[in-house]
């Protein structure tokens, strides 16, 4: 077992137990040595475990590959069992069996298990006594302090616990966590009932803590943070966003010599006065997030920035005004690499002064900023030619001029997000592809993009994500170029790009075999032909064909058979899809987790078939004419793993209350929608007009 060091831990959905048990090899035989010789001799049996481990190290993340590997022989099965380090079980009930099979798991991700009781945690604590290093309980509930304590006490190697969203977590639970002496990373986001007492227990009990997230911990005050600062001297990353901390906490934290990452987003007490009062600085600070602190102006900012000379990353989202005075704080920060000014009011001079102060920026985000002009953008990009990521989403004052100068200076861009830059014309957009050949991620949603623009973008051979939604001018011609020259494309968004037809999608499917996500919503011209083509993309995980009325069950069947990885499916308003489409999904798409069936022609039969998919967690079932309350109740009851279901509110009275309570107790939450039935599809032109009205307002 020694050779596995350095291998990246894989994460996968454990789907082995969802099928019949007897199909699996018997897990009782642990060692290849114990295999009886008189059985049919296999050449694979002779391979040593070390060699099997080396093979497993080289398997990619695809869980099916590992499954296939374990099915080769008993020795392979045993080797795979002992090789696996990361486990993401689907149900907490499966934990005992899974842990019995995988004794060497060090990372346990329970985020798919809604209900994790103390028994499950006790089982984990008993089975993974020495190996467990990390556990994720961020989406789980119904465990108590006792379960956490058993975990913290038994698993001496535990270094990472994610308890975010455990809104019911109390100080007693925090005290239990405090018994994990070796804990290094702890997330307690939104644990609103934890107070200073709990944090104090953690601070004293976990002296090796390096990362602590106390976001939204409303019960935590300066006292708790002060104790953390005193007791956890190795702390590197601290998130205190949306807490009631004041300058006293900052003073205490400035004593931490290793603190690199500090977030004080939305802390109401953070003001200029609080920041200015800091005598001693954060010498080691590299990442600072002071977003949404209304009372912090350039005065407080400059004082804290002066005290943090090594800052690399600065987030100032929702800062009120970015004016030249901000540069007074930025001047000394020659090392600053990333600055985020989302949703701020920016002046041209402010951008210019930032540009003249910071010349080594790699990332710049001006998303939803008002006041970003061509002049400002041109200046800051001309000073920072090494820019890699740029976000100018919704900067509606930028024109072709700004894009031209930006693209000519920043030729090494890999990520460009410029959704809804409405003044940029197709001519300007062509420059992007022509000049920035290294782009991997482009978001041109709601722009004046045309086929020429797509053609130029197809010059970026590393392109992995292209978002061209609401680009009414693009057509198959452009997509053909993309399909021909972007083989690494993984994400394609063509939402409401109505000019696209089957031909374009077919070309994409042919040229981009790695495609994982495609959004064809409201591309009304799509037919089953597109889906048949896409079924060749075996790694497709997300498919959105909402509002494509010409797609039928046949196309969906092709996807179900071809794309076994499919996890998210949106077939809302595909009126032609009926039970015939559900049956192949139920049969083949064993990874399906989320589905939207609204307005389809699926009946009780299809629904009942579908819920046999054991992974299914999230369902939206609105306005299905053929679904009766009884059928729906049976489906809900049959699908044990559901966590979130959207139903029409008319069903609320029709399904028996005890049943609903039972399903809710299993960890499923209902969302009751009362929208009236809407048959007519809005045409894209009408929709676009409405959208623009909204924007103008």
């Amino acid at each position, binding site marked *: 077992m020694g050779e596995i060091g350095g291998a990246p831990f894989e994460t996968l959905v454990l789907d082995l137990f969802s099928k019949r048990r007897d199909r699996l090899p018997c897990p009782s035989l642990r060692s290849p040595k114990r295999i009886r010789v008189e059985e049919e001799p296999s050449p694979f049996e002779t391979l040593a475990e070390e060699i099997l481990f080396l093979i497993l190290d080289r398997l990619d993340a695809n869980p099916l590959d590992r499954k296939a590997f374990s099915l080769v022989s008993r020795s392979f099965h045993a080797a795979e069992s002992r090789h696996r380090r990361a486990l993401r079980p689907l149900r907490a009930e499966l934990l005992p069996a899974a842990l019995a099979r995988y004794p060497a798991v060090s990372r346990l991700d329970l985020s798919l298990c809604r209900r994790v009781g103390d028994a499950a945690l006790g089982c984990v604590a008993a089975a993974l006594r020495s190996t467990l290093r990390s556990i994720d309980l961020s989406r789980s509930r119904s465990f108590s302090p006792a379960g956490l304590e058993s975990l913290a006490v038994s698993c001496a190697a535990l270094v990472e616990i994610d308890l975010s969203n455990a809104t019911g977590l*109390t*100080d*007693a639970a925090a005290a239990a966590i405090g018994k994990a002496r070796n804990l290094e990373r702890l997330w307690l986001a939104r644990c609103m009932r934890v107070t200073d*007492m*709990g944090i*104090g*227990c953690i601070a*004293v009990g976990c002296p090796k803590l390096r990362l602590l997230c106390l976001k939204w911990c409303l019960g935590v005050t300066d*006292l708790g943070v002060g*104790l953390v600062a005193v007791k956890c001297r190795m702390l590197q990353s601290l998130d205190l966003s949306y807490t009631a901390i004041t300058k006293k906490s900052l003073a205490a934290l400035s004593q931490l010599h290793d603190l690199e990452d500090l977030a004080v987003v939305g802390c109401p007490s953070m003001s200029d006065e609080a920041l200015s009062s800091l005598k001693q600085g954060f010498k080691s600070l590299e990442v600072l997030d002071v977003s949404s602190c209304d009372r912090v102006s350039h005065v407080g900012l400059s004082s804290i920035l002066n005290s943090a000379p090594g800052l690399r990353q600065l987030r100032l989202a929702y800062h009120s005004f970015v004016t030249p005075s901000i540069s007074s704080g930025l001047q000394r920060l020659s090392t600053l690499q990333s600055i985020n000014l989302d949703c701020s009011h920016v002046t041209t001079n402010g951008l210019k002064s930032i540009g003249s102060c910071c010349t080594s920026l790699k990332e710049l985000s001006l998303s939803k900023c008002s006041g970003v002009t061509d002049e400002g953008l041109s200046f800051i990009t001309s000073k920072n030619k090494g820019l890699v990521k740029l976000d100018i989403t919704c900067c509606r004052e930028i024109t072709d001029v700004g894009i031209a100068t930006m693209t000519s200076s920043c030729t090494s861009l890999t990520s460009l997000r410029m959704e809804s830059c409405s003044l940029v014309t197709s001519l300007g957009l062509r420059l992007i592809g022509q000049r920035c050949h290294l782009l991997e991620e482009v978001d041109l949603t709601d722009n004046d993009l045309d086929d020429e623009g797509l053609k130029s973008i197809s010059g970026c051979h590393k392109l992995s994500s292209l978002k061209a939604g609401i680009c009414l001018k693009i057509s198959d011609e452009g997509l053909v170029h993309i399909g021909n020259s972007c083989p690494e494309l993984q994400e394609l968004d063509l939402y409401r790009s109505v000019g696209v037809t089957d031909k374009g999608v077919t070309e994409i499917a042919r040229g981009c075999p790695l495609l994982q996500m495609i959004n064809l919503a409201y591309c009304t011209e799509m037919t089953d032909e597109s889906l048949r083509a896409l079924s060749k993309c075996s790694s497709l995980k997300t498919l959105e064909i909402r509002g494509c009325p010409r797609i039928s069950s046949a196309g969906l069947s092709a996807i179900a058979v071809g794309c076994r990885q499919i996890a998210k499916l949106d077939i809302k308003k595909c009126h032609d899809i009926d039970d015939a489409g559900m049956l192949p999904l139920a049969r083949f798409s064993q990874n399906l987790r989320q589905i939207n069936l609204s307005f389809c022609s699926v009946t009780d039969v299809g629904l009942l078939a579908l819920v046999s998919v054991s992974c299914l967690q999230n369902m939206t079932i609105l306005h299905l004419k053929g679904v009766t309350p009884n059928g729906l109740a049976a489906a809900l009851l049959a699908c044990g793993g559901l966590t979130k279901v959207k139903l029409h509110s008319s069903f609320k009275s029709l399904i028996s209350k005890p049943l609903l309570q039972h399903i809710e107790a299993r960890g499923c939450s209902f969302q009751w929608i009362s929208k009236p039935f809407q048959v007519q599809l809005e045409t894209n032109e009408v929709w676009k007009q409405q959208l623009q009205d909204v924007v103008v307002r």
Partner: protein
Amino acid sequence: MDHKLKGTSEASSKPSSLMPGNHFNPANLAYGFAQSPKTQSQALPSYHPDNKMKITNPLESSQTVSTPILDWDPRGMLSNLSFLEQKIHQVQDIVRQIISQEGQFSNRAGELAAQQQLVTADLTCIIIQLISTAGTLLPSIKNSLLSTNPMLGAPTAAFGSNPNLNTNQQRNEVVTPEMNKGSEYEELIKSLSASGEDSDELMLKCLDAGRAGGADERIPIDDHDLKESDDGGAADGENLPPGSYEVLQLEKEEILAPHTHFCSICGKGFKRDANLRMHMRGHGDEYKTPAALAKPARGPASEPALVRRYSCPFAGCKRNKEHKKFQPLKTILCVKNHYKRSHCDKSYICSRCNTKKFSVIADLKTHEKHCGRDKWLCSCGTTFSRKDKLFGHVALFQGHTPALPVDLPIDDVKTPNNNNSNNTPELSRGGEAVNGLGGNMSSYGFPSSTSDDINSIDIKGVDDSRGYFSPMNFDSCNFGVLDDFPRPAFDVAENPFSFLPSGSCSFTQRNGES
């Protein structure tokens, strides 16, 4: 006529010679006598602007200057002065007689000599009487240096300086070295009163001095002296060396008296004069005028703030002025609280813990606010009344952890029952004690009363509110939550019922401030 005159003068001179003895009695000194300067200044204009009268003027004026001294007996002084007035009238009569005789019979030398002798004797008597009257002020002079300058200055200038010199300049030089020599001066007066012959000489000197320094020139001198005393006060006002302040001592009965202000009409007692003034309104419209309702001015404006400290009447107490290391008390309230805390029974017992006893009810209130609930617990077993203290402790010591109070809600469910069953006797006892102190208190209500008359009903009310209405109980009963936000819940619980504890709270604060 002469005989009669002589007889009366002798007869009246006898008590005058006795008077100084009275006023030097040290027993009277500490308490002091309050003499208003008005009585003197009113007495002065009645004197005739005679040549001989000027003898008295330096001394008289010096006394008017020494107004800071408040606490001598004004009645004694007044009787002395009226006696002096009579005496001076007698002398005046004799002198007028001599003048009229001069015109009628020129050669009656024997009679004239006898009359002169009589005048001399009377004047000597007057001088001695004046000096002794001034001498009553001496003990308080000893205690407060501030007031010594004018007092010592005048006589020393009168007795010790060359009569031919202008006293204006002389006074400064003489006064400063003599500042602290109150006792010497006392001896001087004693010797004066003892020997009549010396006093003759002195009298003459005084006469000369009186003639040399005219009444007009004296006024600026007095001003100067006042200024000097002010400076001295400012210089050593902060340190308060022993003797730099005046010491008052209230008697035990005064300290424990529930009321200090009484209605002159119905006799009802009050703790504060403001309340008395409010009460007086009910006795008629004349008490409703703004002048009657206004806060009485603190004496004349010219009166400089005298540092005053208090002594505890309990013998042997460090706060008693006889103690070697006497530490004075600052205010009357301090005296009251000190006396109750140190020398009285602790009759108020905490109804929560049943162990803590207090003699000042405000202390009980303060304690009750924290008793039993805000127990911030450390893993070492130490408890703290405040969270920040606990965190300071945990931060200081390695391995200590904040400990969660597991059984807190259960405890809190129990406590109201305990209170009701065990502590009602205590409460009633406390109520009796309070009622004994102030009979009209229940009708009076706490908002205007001082700390020690909070009704026993109030205490009960607080307990009840905690027992039955606090969210703590809802927590423990309805949800079975053991340790969720016990403290915030409590703080919140305090607010709806704040009308009860807040009164006591504000009182304790007021106590602390004063």
